[in-house]
């Protein structure tokens, strides 16, 4: 979100100078502030202050000639002129917002949209064009209905519709331009003007969509002719409109993708502009600047890109990745810390890049990998979207795909400040840079790292090979308010808008007002007038209570989608929960203790803008792009500690809905922390090595950071990067590759180096740590102590046969033993969660048996919301996370202990799936695949997979995929799409196939015909797959003979 403070550009001052006095020009900023203020006061239903109405009125008078002066300006500073138009556009926008007369309001919306486009704020131009009340067009005698509708469609960037409208207007006017039809000279010129205008827009649209070079020239000539004809038609309004449109189209085409062919390969442009589902035609200024800096000839290899939230980083990253992959061999890794973002980015890239022959694979999970499945469905993929933990795992496993990398894009890189995960990310980037950085590009992305710290990123990646872009441009304006009460003012509730104005008495005096109460009152005000509100709360309990209070005070509404969601959520919540009732009214809360199903339902409603108020904790506040106009931060604490400045900034960035609105409001309820909004220094961007440096052995303060270092050192030891002989050099080498090295002073560096060298010595001198055991230690990503504890337990496993199932049911007694070994005495980060739960093993059993949480809850006697929250917390915060991870390591350690004599241990393949069963709460491969491929409803996955085929060995995943694709239902659309788009070639062995290589036909019965002769049949378990691929017409089917007889199904 762009910071504001009204800025009167030089070109605006120059334009004003021609007709305003010096004092009036100096006063201009105050007038703009007054208009803004008046709008916000009215929006919040607060009485305007004396003088603001007059000032606003005065500004509206000034802005029309000012726009005109600016339009006729010969100023050479294009950038300054653009800022000028952006300001003018915002004035028209506010004028529209406070104007009671519909016709005048519409005029202001149109003026605003044109000026925003001229000012290269195309997102805002789309928004304001969309506010035009089109129902009034046919009633306004001053307007030409066809022309006005066409221009509004064009400004709204509805290319398909406006192209149709332009062509239809050309046909219509051409037909009307006949002697018998013309009843006046004005009419003749008016029709000629309309025809040329429609031709101009048609050509501009054809250029936007297809890049027709001839159209790039011809649209302008048509527009000139149009203006001339309208001048002669006496229609001053159309003269004005077309002259403004001409400039705006020029600005639009400047930033159009087809105008950037020197930067972006044409095939990439085509993939965006001609996408059927959601085409993209032009870039925002932030994106153009970023791309020019990153992918121009001569750009340095590595880049740190700091761009505000919602300013279009994902599109920039997608273009960078696509260009790199088209020009060079290798793979792209897009690393993002939140699972929700992994899914969003994956969805975005999958929309555009497959047309370029680039296959995108979202690698789910973290350390609970199922390599066979991933290899099977990720074959031929070149873009991998994954979490840092997953990339860490691939590095530890020396995955060939990393070796073949050509670009790494790290999103949300400010997360290096986080405990544990942050250090892992820093180490990951450091080693990627060191190992692959000389041939692979590294792009670091963030929305919140301050400019002075961004320099450190450049130094980290190496000044010789790296540079940065710090872009402040954002599609929406950001307003930041701080709420406070003063005793000397009788505890009136005031709001100060930073760099703007005060709103006194926004809430009545109340000495005893609680934070929750006043937050609720402000939420109601903002929601009513400025749309959906996100309320950040410091705890789950607070989020719930806040939502309840708001729900009690918010007026009821009725919405079919909310009613359906409410019904759905009812079956996942306890009987005393009022969440389903709240949902009906458009209010919800969201925190880690809700089941994944409930969370994803709420997230979807939030993304779609269906919720009026959403109260949440940090679980949701970061990483998910929600559709909210206002963020109210009721507390700056996260749990018991104050939130990092950057996290707060990131949270604030959620306010504002690009393409839906032009502004976002962030209200901080804790005035004691106002410096967060006003002082950049408050934002700390610091390596976690500082904490590592401060920790001493056995001190648990920063245990997670220490474990991450140990784990990293174990991996390096296994990879022979460190040994007993080179500890001093290696520790230096490691530390100098980090961000910390570029941030620390000499003393800090020395102290940390000493600590690191000691730890390294400790690791390389562990007796008998070698071979497969070391490999497992290196690959798990767990700390040394956990590995050792697990290894001790694994050694107690008697040589036996590990059967996962007996007589068709889970072999629970054996599975239970395995799981209990994994429940470490000192859990890594889930201690508190475990304290609240009894009968853990029984709960886990029911979890992987696929019982709905609500049933497990009832069985345990957890009847109230709090107990249900504790249970959900245990399952998602411990079982699905830590236990699954530890279990993955444990199974591998059992394997490793029998590596010398594998015949002593006969282990069912399904045991390797157990970590993932624990993660997703399912008990068969079908359910697991459904969840991994995107079915968010675990209960449905379990219900559907009751009859899933089982896996005997790791090569049989094709059966499961076939089975999943054969399942029908609306909820499975996403699963099918994910699987089909991820499968490049299905190769099905045909046991009895004896035909020659060549094309064949397969019917729905699985009979294979070649030259009208049935040559074989497909095994029954593959039939669903054949049926679905044929039905979707998304695959060609052919038979090849590569040593083995195969039926290949190649998605189109």
């Amino acid at each position, binding site marked *: 979100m762009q910071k504001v403070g009204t800025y009167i550009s030089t070109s605006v001052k120059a334009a004003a100078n021609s007709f305003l006095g010096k004092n009036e020009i100096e006063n201009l900023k105050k007038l703009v502030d007054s208009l803004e203020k008046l709008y916000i006061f009215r929006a919040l239903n607060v009485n305007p202050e004396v003088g603001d109405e007059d000032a606003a009125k005065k500004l509206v008078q000034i802005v029309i000639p000012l726009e005109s002066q600016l339009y006729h300006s010969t100023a050479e500073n294009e950038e300054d002129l653009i800022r000028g138009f952006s300001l003018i556009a915002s004035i028209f926008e506010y004028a529209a917002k406070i104007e009671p007369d519909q016709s005048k309001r519409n005029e202001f919306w149109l003026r605003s949209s044109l000026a925003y486009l001229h000012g290269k704020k195309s997102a805002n131009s789309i928004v304001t064009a969309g506010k035009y009340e089109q129902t009034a067009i046919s009633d306004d005698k001053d307007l030409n209905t066809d022309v006005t509708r066409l221009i509004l469609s064009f400004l709204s960037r509805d290319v398909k519709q406006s192209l149709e409208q332009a062509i239809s207007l050309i046909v219509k006017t051409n037909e009307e331009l006949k002697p018998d039809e013309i009843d006046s000279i004005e009419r003749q010129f008016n029709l000629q003007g309309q025809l040329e205008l429609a031709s101009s827009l048609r050509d501009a649209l054809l250029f936007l969509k297809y890049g027709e070079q001839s159209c790039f020239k011809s649209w302008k000539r048509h527009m000139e002719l149009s203006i001339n004809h309208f001048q002669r038609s*006496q229609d001053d309004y159309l003269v004005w409109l077309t002259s403004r449109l001409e400039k705006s189209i020029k600005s639009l085409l400047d930033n159009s993708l087809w105008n950037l062919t020197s930067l972006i390969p044409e095939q990439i442009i085509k993939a965006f502009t001609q996408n059927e589902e959601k085409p993209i035609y032009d870039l925002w200024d932030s994106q153009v600047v970023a791309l020019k800096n990153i992918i121009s000839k001569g750009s340095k290899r590595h880049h740190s890109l700091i761009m505000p939230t919602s300013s279009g980083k994902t599109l920039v990253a997608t273009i960078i990745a696509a260009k790199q992959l088209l020009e060079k061999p290798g793979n792209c890794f897009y690393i993002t810390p939140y699972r929700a973002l992994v899914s969003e980015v994956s969805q975005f890239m999958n929309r555009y890049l497959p047309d370029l022959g680039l296959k995108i694979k979202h690698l789910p999970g973290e350390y609970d990998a199922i390599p066979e499945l991933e290899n099977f469905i990720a074959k031929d993929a070149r873009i991998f979207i994954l979490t840092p933990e997953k990339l860490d795992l691939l590095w530890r496993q020396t995955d060939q795909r990393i070796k073949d990398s050509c670009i790494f894009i790290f999103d949300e890189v400010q997360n290096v400040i986080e405990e544990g995960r942050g250090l892992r990310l820093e180490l990951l980037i450091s080693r990627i840079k060191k190992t692959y950085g000389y041939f692979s590009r590294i792009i670091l992305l963030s929305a919140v790292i301050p400019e002075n710290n961004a320099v450190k990123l450049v130094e980290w990646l190496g000044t010789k090979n790296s540079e940065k872009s710090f872009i402040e441009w954002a599609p929406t304006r950001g307003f930041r308010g701080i709420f406070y009460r003063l005793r000397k003012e009788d505890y009136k509730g005031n709001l100060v808008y930073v760099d703007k104005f005060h709103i006194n008495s926004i809430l009545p005096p109340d000495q005893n007002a609680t934070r929750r109460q006043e937050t609720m009152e402000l939420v109601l005000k903002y929601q009513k007038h400025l749309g959906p509100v996100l309320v950040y709360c410091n705890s789950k309990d607070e989020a719930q209570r806040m939502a309840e209070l708001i729900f009690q005070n918010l007026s009821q509404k009725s919405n079919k989608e909310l009613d359906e969601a409410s019904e759905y959520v009812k079956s996942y919540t306890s009987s005393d929960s009022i969440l389903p009732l709240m949902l009906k009214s458009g209010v919800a809360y969201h925190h880690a203790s809700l089941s994944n199903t409930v969370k994803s339902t709420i997230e979807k409603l939030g993304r779609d803008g269906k919720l009026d108020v959403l109260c949440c904790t940090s679980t949701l506040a970061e990483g998910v792009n929600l559709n909210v106009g206002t963020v109210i931060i009721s507390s700056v604490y996260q749990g018991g500690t104050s939130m990092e400045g950057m996290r707060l900034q990131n949270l604030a960035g959620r306010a504002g809905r690009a393409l839906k609105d032009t502004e976002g409001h962030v209200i901080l309820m804790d005035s004691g922390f106002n410096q967060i909004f006003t002082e950049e220094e408050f934002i700390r961007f610091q390596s976690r090595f500082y904490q590592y440096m401060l920790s001493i052995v056995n001190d648990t303060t920063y245990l997670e950071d220490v474990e991450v270092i140990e784990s990293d050192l174990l991996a390096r030891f296994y990879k022979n990067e460190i040994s007993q002989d080179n500890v001093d050099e290696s520790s230096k080498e490691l530390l100098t590759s980090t961000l910390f090295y570029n941030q620390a002073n000499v003393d800090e560096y020395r102290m940390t180096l000493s600590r690191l060298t000691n730890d390294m010595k400790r690791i390389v001198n562990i007796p008998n740590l070698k071979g497969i055991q070391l490999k497992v230690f290196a690959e798990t990503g767990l700390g040394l102590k956990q590995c050792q504890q697990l290894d001790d337990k694994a050694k107690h496993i008697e040589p036996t046969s590990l059967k996962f199932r007996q007589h068709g049911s889970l072999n629970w007694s054996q599975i239970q033993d395995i799981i209990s070994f994994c429940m470490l005495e000192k859990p890594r980060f889930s201690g508190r969660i475990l304290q609240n739960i009894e009968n853990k093993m029984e709960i886990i059993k029911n979890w992987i048996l696929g019982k709905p949480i609500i049933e497990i809850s009832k069985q345990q006697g957890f009847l109230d919301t709090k107990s249900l929250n504790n249970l959900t917390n245990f399952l998602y915060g411990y079982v699905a996370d830590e236990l699954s991870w530890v279990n993955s390591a444990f199974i591998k350690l059992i394997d490793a202990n029998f590596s010398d004599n594998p015949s002593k241990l006969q282990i069912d393949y399904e045991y390797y799936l157990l970590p993932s069963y624990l993660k997703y709460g399912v008990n068969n491969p079908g359910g697991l695949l459904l969840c991994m491929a995107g079915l968010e409803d675990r209960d449905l996955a379990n219900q559907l997979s009751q009859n899933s085929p089982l896996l005997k060995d790791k090569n049989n995943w094709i059966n499961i995929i076939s089975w999943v694709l054969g399942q029908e239902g609306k909820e499975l659309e996403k699963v099918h799409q994910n699987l089909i788009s991820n499968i490049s070639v299905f190769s099905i062995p045909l046991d009895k196939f004896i035909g020659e290589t060549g094309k064949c036909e397969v019917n729905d019965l699985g009979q294979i015909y070649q030259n009208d002769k049935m040559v074989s049949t497909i095994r029954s378990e593959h039939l669903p797959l054949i049926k679905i691929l044929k039905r979707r017409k998304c695959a060609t089917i052919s038979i090849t003979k590569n040593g083995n007889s195969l039926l290949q199904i190649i998605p189109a």
Partner: protein
Amino acid sequence: MANNFEKYCEVENKVFEDLFSLSDVKINQASGLDSFILEEFTKKRLDFHSLELSFETYAGINDVEQEVIQFSWPIIQNHLSNFPIDSPDYSSIEQKLNQATKKTEQVTKVLESLKRLHEISKHALESNVRGLEDDIDKKIGYVGELFSYLYARDIQKADCLYHKLILDNPKSFRQGLDLLTVIFDSDSDKDQVHFWEIKGTQKNFDTQRNNIITWFNQPGDKHLTMAIEAAKMQWKNEYPKVYERAIKALSRFQIQENNFRYVGSITIDQNLKPTDDAIRKFKKINANKNNKHLIILKTEKLLERIEMVYDTICKK
């Protein structure tokens, strides 16, 4: 004295009863007046300049190549006389075009485009003229617009003028401002903007005066704003040296500075003598006395003069 309107006029300026400015203009029957009026009509009111652009539009619809359009027009221009009343000399044009290019298909298309333009333009002009036949006051007003334009240009010495380029059609779905002028002062801060609403009448002075009052008193300012915008567009090309100053004067008006006049102009026959009471009612325009100005343009044998113009320009 140069051959301009001033030569034919006697002007008496005064402040009418301290209510508004009044200019009583007598247009004398001097020799050369008729030919002067006809010449100005041809130049200003029929705007043949736009023909080239209209031709480009029709040629464009007809898929004539841009290059062909460009070399065709100078050829066509030499074979137009009294367009659109008379037909262009198609055979000469065809001959010249065939000498200039071997693309016979293109030549055919050029000729088709020209023919279409001619037929439409002729029909449009006739429609406008026909529309005036039944309304004598409109017919007078149409010539009165030229008189007013000439008055502003030659007598008031307006520095920038934005006027209607074609004759009015009473059926027109939209009628804007008749004339907009800026008159520079020695001090640019005192430059004046004049908005004109022009009428003519044989005997209904009161009605036309009331029409003028209604027009100026209509709610909102869109009718003026858009005329101002259109004028700015035109002046940039027409008065490149002074347009910035003119735009400034318009902008100052838009922020409600007092640098304007609402000018009502009524063309009447010299025999029609409006009473003081009829003139006095002009005060009803919502503006200060210094901001409203009534101009009465009088001439002998008004109807004869109107018919002369009408017959020569439109019916030839």
